[in-house]
């Protein structure tokens, strides 16, 4: 049962990542301004990669392969990791704006990498036990 949920979760999140990744790339190439979707070619590429990992997982689920869960799990990890990276970068941007006395708005920080990572993080918390097995502190 939990596996079916995870498969669907991976498929939905994967489609969202893929779609918004496309939009970012399109708006970077065509200078189209969209709300909450920054024009960023490489940023879009990253979203596409995460989407591809999640969708690969969903596909394997659909084929009845156990490996699907592995891809969805790692997709969730990547989603959270890049969400954190983007948030960190946005926080630094805010700090810089304060130091250099420039304008800054919270809207700049609301990008797909961040709001999709919120969904990813929900998945991470829901299945968090799988993520800590066998990991060793160096």
């Amino acid at each position, binding site marked *: 049962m939990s596996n079916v949920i995870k498969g669907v979760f991976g498929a939905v999140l994967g489609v969202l990542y893929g779609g918004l990744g496309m939009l970012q790339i399109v708006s970077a190439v065509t200078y189209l301004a969209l709300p909450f979707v920054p024009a960023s070619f*490489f940023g879009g590429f990253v979203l596409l*990669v*995460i989407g591809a990992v999640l969708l690969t997982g969903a596909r394997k689920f659909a084929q009845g392969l156990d490996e699907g869960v592995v*891809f969805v799990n*790692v997709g969730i990890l990547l989603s959270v990791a890049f969400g954190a990276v983007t948030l960190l970068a946005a926080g630094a941007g805010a700090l810089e704006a304060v*130091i250099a006395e420039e304008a800054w708005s919270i809207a700049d920080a609301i990008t797909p990498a961040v709001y999709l990572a919120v969904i990813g993080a929900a998945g991470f918390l829901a299945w968090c036990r799988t993520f800590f097995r066998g990991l060793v502190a*160096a």
Partner: protein
Amino acid sequence: MTGIRIALTGNPNVGKTTLFNALTGSRQHVGNWPGVTVEKKTGRIDWNGHAIDVIDLPGTYSLTAYSADEVVARDYIIDENPDVVVQVVDATNLERNLYLTTQLAELGVPVVIALNMADAAEAGGYAIDREKLSALLAIPVVRTVGTRGEGLDGLLDAAIREAETSPHHEHTVGYGNDAEAMIASIVDVLSADKDLTKRYPLRWLAVRLLEGDENALAKIRDSPAFTGVQALLSGIDPDEYEAAMADRRYEMIAAVLPQVRTAGAGGMNVSEMVDRVVTDRYLGIPIFLALMWGAFELTFAVAAPFVALIEAGLAWLSATVAGSIEPGWLASLVGDGIIGGVGAVLVFVPNIFILFLILSFLDDTGYLARAAFIMDRLMYAIGLPGKAFIPMLIGFGCNVPGIMAARTIEGEKDRLITILVNPFISCSARLPVYILFAGAFFGAGAGGVVFLLYILGIAAAIGSAKLFRHTILPGESSPFIMEMPPYRLPTAWTSLLHMWSRGAMYVRKAGTIILVGALVVWCLASLPFGVDYGSSASLAGALGHLLEPLVAPLGFDWKIAVALLFGFVAKEVVVGSLGVLYGTGEGGDALSMALLADPGLSAATALALMIFVLLYTPCLATIATIRKETGSWRWAGFSVAYGLVLAWLLALIVGHIASLFLGGA
């Protein structure tokens, strides 16, 4: 007080250097991949009235050495007779590690096993019965955790005890009737040579000879027993014996393991899950690229507020200097020369530290080793072993250790190619140039431009490797099976320490080489007396105009020509020189403002300049290292010439194409 020499040996990536650092208080480089240490390093400690020399050796899977770094380890153990050999063993991977143990036992040297990474084994659910293991191998076994410095006292005590007891009980593998008969007859022939008998254990030598070991053969070449041994070996196939005897060793290990180890619960852990995905056939390289891009985003974004602070500080400093120092030339020396030159480089300290923090993190977790694995197929396609990607990864920090890391490459031609392409990997010293120019001319796209430059560096390295393979260094390389270190969650502390030790070098360079470079350029810009500072009439101007025709096709003016010339010393000097020449003693982000205001510079020339800086000789130290590692000035000269030509051509082509799109040039 007695002196004791302890050699640390073991498979690659088992934590030898970590233990060495913990024992001796050194800071040798540690990395979560095989082949980090390529030279032997010695450290001295006093312990309970003993003066102990600890020697850290490169990792090796067996005493039959194949690559240059393995030879270092083997020769030290066999020929330098350390008082005791500590074999560092990865407790999570006993199968592969105990193979070396069987060979060391045969050699008859006093051995102590440091059962390292005990924490990882325990976390993985393994329990290892050390007493049983010790009894079965007749070797003391001590539990250690190198990263936390656990078990060091016990290790030293055991090592001293072993060094001082004699004789040692050797506990060697039996190779079966056939091989044993051959060994016995070889030993018989060898024992006629008393000199040999004194130097090497004959059984060990006989085994090596039977396996067809070239190095062992060389050891007896001058011995009177040589012809006799040759006669014995003439009818046999050494490969067959080598394989059969290796089987026996593994059988022995397989017999020991179940008696000493209870395995943990099954199931895929996170490490295995992540591996399955990041090394996926199709997704592996895209994920690698995505992570790299994330790394540069962070390098830019997170550093920005700190850079802004430093800029503000420098602006204040130069304003103070300008107002309070007399006479004018001294104010110019301090303002234009020191603050302008060194300050321009120091501004980027936050970027450098963050880049190193990210690289250390990726390295410590074990991801960089995976990156090498992912690239294996690509590397193999261009005719290099996948291992050759590791020197490239190290080159992202600095090309000098990157080139030295090529010692892990087995074939001589493979190694040469790996060395020659390493300078194209963009080292951290080039980052300030990119940040300065990309930041000034590409605004929000700066991160993407820098990312592309790094990719271009990798492409230039791979393309050149393919070119060399098909022209001057033809051949085929053997496929390589890479061992993957487990993922580890590095503590913030280890990563910070790594970052600090690498980043501190940058700051030190700013205070030495770059300071000197800035002062030289300042002198050139101020002389002859009475000339307008930094004008065409100065010595710097004369020098620049002399070089200008060479770089004019690329759209560079004399100031850039001078900066590039001094950039041979080190790449940060390019930024330092420009800081001096543009006379931006006002500090702050004045240099990027001055560059933007220069009508001779456009986004296209900035791009051409960054490409030129990416591809031409990284620094004098790199040239010296290439000379040292290849043993010839010819290759060093070739590297400089090839780099210059490639840099010039690509800068020209890209500059012209870019000027079509971006305008200017």
